[in-house]
């Protein structure tokens, strides 16, 4: 890059030479209309000056762009560092509680208790160990999502959602919620989505599960899907308590748990998994929420344009 800046300094010299030679030619020709009389030295000087100003302006704007670019990179780095710091803090927090419970449980066991309390202590230690196992399993899923080979089969989104809704309806959390599925019938059915059936199902089910977990009896949960340009959009909307505005940008981060999520079981990895899955499929996720009114989460997945090698997966 340095040689480029040096060469810029040569531009006025070259320009001066060109103008000087032009004027020698012009004054040699007969010209009855316009008569210019500038001596060669002044002309060269003026031309050099003008071009120097231009070159300097170019240099300044180039440096300015570079500085802005560096600022942006630094911004992204700081943000990544900040996210990492928050992630580690949350991980530490997620592990602290089960570990404390395990230590207390083991201390109780070492104290020689009655068989009944001993059994209780053992059960509690086991539950906490399972909780930690679940956490590592979820973290592993997230890590694996970035590298694992995706199966690409034509996924029938309508059928997949029907199945996800049917499964969700069986869960105890669904009690008292109005759970509806809206699918376009006209003028044509939705196109398939090329993707990993299991992962797309898991992502859709995670959203549905979240909606049921965070709503109250009497609330409505609506699942809908529609064609959106070259994408298929899947939305899960609910009339739940909503997410405070300041928490919305954070909800996709690993292990993030909002204020309203305290006391609701979960690791805070569900939405992060949804995002990673959708992004691996070349799609996008968005979340809109209004406190007191509800939440809409949208996954947009690229639609299938060409026929695929594999048959459709359906049950």
């Amino acid at each position, binding site marked *: 890059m340095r040689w480029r800046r040096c060469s810029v300094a040569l531009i006025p010299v070259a320009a001066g030479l060109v103008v000087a030679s032009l004027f020698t030619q012009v004054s040699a020709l007969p010209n009855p209309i316009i008569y210019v009389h500038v001596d060669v030295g002044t002309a060269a000087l003026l031309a050099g000056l003008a071009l120097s100003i231009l070159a300097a302006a170019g240099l300044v704007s180039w440096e300015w762009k570079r500085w802005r670019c560096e600022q942006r990179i630094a911004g992204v780095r700081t943000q990544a560092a900040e996210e990492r710091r928050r992630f580690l803090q949350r991980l530490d927090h997620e592990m602290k509680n089960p570990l404390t419970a395990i230590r207390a449980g083991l201390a109780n066991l070492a104290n020689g208790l009655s068989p009944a309390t001993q059994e209780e202590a053992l059960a509690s230690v086991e539950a906490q160990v399972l909780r930690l*196992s679940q956490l*590592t*399993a979820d973290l*592993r*899923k997230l890590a*694996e999502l970035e*590298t*694992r*080979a995706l*199966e690409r*089969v034509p996924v029938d989104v309508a059928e997949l959602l029907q*199945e*996800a809704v049917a*499964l969700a309806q069986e869960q105890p959390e669904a009690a008292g919620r109005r759970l509806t599925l809206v699918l376009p019938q006209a003028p044509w059915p939705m196109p398939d989505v090329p993707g990993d*059936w*299991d992962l797309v*199902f*898991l992502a859709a*089910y995670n959203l549905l*599960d979240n909606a049921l977990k965070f709503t109250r009896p009497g609330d409505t949960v609506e699942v809908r899907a529609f064609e959106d340009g070259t994408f298929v959009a899947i939305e899960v909307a609910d009339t739940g308590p909503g997410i405070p505005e300041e928490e919305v940008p954070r909800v996709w981060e690993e292990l993030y748990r909002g204020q309203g999520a305290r006391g609701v079981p979960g690791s805070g990895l569900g939405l992060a998994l949804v995002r990673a899955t959708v992004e691996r499929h070349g799609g996008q996720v968005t979340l809109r929420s209004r406190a007191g009114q509800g939440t809409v989460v949208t996954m947009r997945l690229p639609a299938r344009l060409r026929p695929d*090698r*594999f*048959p459709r*997966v*359906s*049950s």
Partner: protein
Amino acid sequence: MTTKPKILLVDDEQAITANLSPFLGRSGFVVTVAADGEEALRQVSSFRPDLIVLDILMPKLDGREALRRLRQAGNWTPVILLTQVGESTERAMALEEGADDYLNKPFDPHELVARIRAVLRRVRPGQPPLASAQRLACGDLILDRQARRVFAASEELRLTPKAVALLEYMMTHPDELLTRDRLLDVVWGWDYPTGTRTVDTRIAELRRVLNDDPAQPRYIETVPGQGYRFVGGVEVVP
């Protein structure tokens, strides 16, 4: 009275061997422990185990390489691999290298004992296990494991990659009750909240493509409330 089966437990993590070894002992096995692949290979010739439980990530000689050397030397002692990272590539590799089964860490020790018993029941002394064969056949159904292709009466069947992996695991573990949870663990490597349906969907795909009637199965039998079993006789295609 039969003698107790001899198990060689190979893991560099002392905390694991120290707890697993007595557990396996109480479950009716004679256990010897090795801390790395090299020591394991030495123990194989001196201790002559009936089965080896082998961790993958170890110093000196890792489990994968130890297994390869063992098989190259023509030793077909059954091996259960303990996969550390749970990576799907690692699971695929485990079967390719001729492991009889594999288990993702962290696991329930009772599950390990169940797997050890299942593998020991299936073993055909001195013969290569089904898990090390390139091609398997059940009647006119042929599975080419390396090419990931399935044929019925010489005609290629169109199956999703996941369904091929499921069929592969079932054909390398015939006559064994395979619970949905276990199939999820070994084929998907994930636990899904939606687990059972995930497996059922692929079983349905297999049955449809293989033209297998669940009421009178030639290949896959449903064990009500428990899981599935591959009931066809599986042979190695030379």
